[in-house]
């Protein structure tokens, strides 16, 4: 691998840095192994992982085994909102469609929105946090003021306003949840960067003439990565809840039926008053299941990686 030439410094980085970097790379590998060991030895982490595997299996294999046909509506009123039976395991919805198959077809939307929206907010939050913490001075002041501003905006009303305005499709929903979820991450990443900046190996390469960009890329980013990762797993749960809420409020993608959308139609068709519990319980349990999977796993990863929590159990 060709080492990029550093510019703007009088002295090139000595080989010491290369050696230090390989040591750190090895550290990182054992770190990953340590995290994995922590998750699998921790009861909470194990439950989270099992839930996660089940969710992925349901989302991927479910629709292949039991495909959902949105056009398969009942031909007679007697087929609408019927309770579970041998033919319809979770009964039928207000149009007479099979709730079980509809439920399976909605699983992957939660996962896609959760992962994609979190990727956006993590990228934004980490970038702002790292730059703010590393550069300090007025950059830090300005960026943190902006972060505080967005931190104080209530997320749900903001997301509703944005989604109502920009339209109803999955891409927009992902974007809207993503660009409102970054301030907490920015704060966490900033404080970690602040402490890294003062560490000896950073001040050393700085005095050896490494450029800011290089220090950020080679020395700071890899070291805040674990924290970002732990935070990511925790944030996914929130993003999934946000999608479900938006869809329930009628701002979901009308083409892609998610669990939130199902609950929207269940509510609008009066399933509650008509006692159609089979239409209301499955999508909600599905949401709780997915959010729990990410929250429990994330909690475990956080315990293993977050320097503030390490050893404090």
């Amino acid at each position, binding site marked *: 691998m060709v080492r990029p030439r550093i510019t703007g410094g009088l002295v090139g980085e000595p080989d010491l840095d290369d050696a230090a970097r390989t040591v750190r790379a090895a550290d990182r590998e054992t770190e990953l192994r340590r995290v994995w060991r922590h998750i699998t030895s921790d009861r909470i982490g194990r439950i989270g992982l099992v839930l996660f595997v089940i969710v992925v299996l349901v989302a991927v294999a479910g629709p292949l085994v039991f495909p959902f046909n949105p056009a398969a509506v009942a031909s007679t009123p007697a087929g609408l909102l019927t309770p579970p039976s041998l033919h319809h395991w979770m009964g039928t919805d207000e149009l007479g469609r099979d709730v079980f198959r509809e439920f399976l077809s909605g699983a992957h939307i939660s996962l896609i929105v959760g992962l994609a929206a979190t990727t956006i907010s993590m990228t934004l939050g980490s970038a702002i946090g790292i730059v703010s913490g590393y550069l300090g001075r007025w950059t830090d002041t300005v960026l943190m003021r902006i972060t505080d501003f967005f931190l104080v905006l209530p997320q749900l009303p903001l997301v509703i306003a944005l989604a109502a*305005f920009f339209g109803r499709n999955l891409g927009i929903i992902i974007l809207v949840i993503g660009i409102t979820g970054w301030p907490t991450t920015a704060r966490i990443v900033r404080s970690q960067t602040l402490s890294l900046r003062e560490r000896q190996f950073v001040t050393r390469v700085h005095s050896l003439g490494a450029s800011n960009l290089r220090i950020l890329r080679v020395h700071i980013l890899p070291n805040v990565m674990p924290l970002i990762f732990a935070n990511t797993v925790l944030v996914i749960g929130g993003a999934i809840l946000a999608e479900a809420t938006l869809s329930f409020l009628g701002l979901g993608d009308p083409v892609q039926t998610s669990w939130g959308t199902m609950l929207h139609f269940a509510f609008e068709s009066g399933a*509650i008053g008509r006692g159609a519990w089979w239409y209301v319980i499955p999508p909600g349990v599905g949401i709780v299941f997915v959010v729990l999977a990410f929250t429990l796993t994330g909690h475990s990863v956080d315990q293993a990686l977050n320097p503030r929590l390490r050893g404090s159990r």
Partner: protein
Amino acid sequence: MSRLRYLARKIIWLVVTLYGIVTFDFVLFHLLPGNPVELLARSGHLTPQAVADITRVYGLNHPPLEQYLIYLRNLLHGQLGISFTYREPVRNLLGQYLGNTMLLLAGATVLTITVGVLAGVVAASRRGGAYDSATITASVIGWSLPTFWTGLILAFVLGVWLHAFPIFGIETPNAIYTSEWQHISDIAAHLALPTLTLVVVNVAQFVLVARASVIEVLAEDFMITATAKGLLPRGILWRHAVRNALLPIVTSSALLIGLVVGGAIEVETVFSWPGMGLLVYNSVLNRDYPVIEAAFLVFAVAVLLVNFASDLLYQILDPRVRES
């Protein structure tokens, strides 16, 4: 003196943030291409006269900067536009709905904080025990519950199956009350399920915050001194630990107010409670943008003010800040 300076800084920050929110609102709803006002003016259903009126009222014929000034002036005069669906000033609508939301949120928030702090303190004092693990498990599950779905399930079980509480609106339709007391108890019955939903969903956060704060205080040196003096464990917990843990609880709780406000939108929708949340839901369904815009403004300003109030409260509660 430093306290005055702190206060001044907080007030400046409040004003700057308020201004930021107002400007953000303008950019979002007025300036971005394809904004609601423009869409309204361009939609083919209007007479040329109506288009001209809308253009004039919202100042669309002016350059952006001037539009911004018009918007600020209207805001200062309390003019929030006219609702597309209700065909009356948004200000009047907010007046009708805001009170109901405050009634719901006040009760729910007081209950949530009380239950949350008590449960958190007890969990902290029995750290690692069965009660503690049960509390944490319940809190994590509570955190994972979607507010609206919790509402649906409670409406189902307590409303439809057990007929314990009404699940729709703020009072029984067409009811004739023989006394004022009967009226109040009818509203209270309608309040029960929305309040219960908000408490169930939000209490988890307060439990965890209170638990963490108390655990932190319990590790302080003066706690050991108190134990060494021979004080009773219960007295130490409530008089020493909880009193010192209240400060972080106050500040962390203020940060959760955004959550509570968001929950109100969901709960009011589920139970058709005629508050700001239901107004937002109906406006979203009807694409009634002036109402959505104003509601966002109200929610954001309310959260900001609560945060400001908690900062002030912190000043009053903390003797270290008070006396310096």
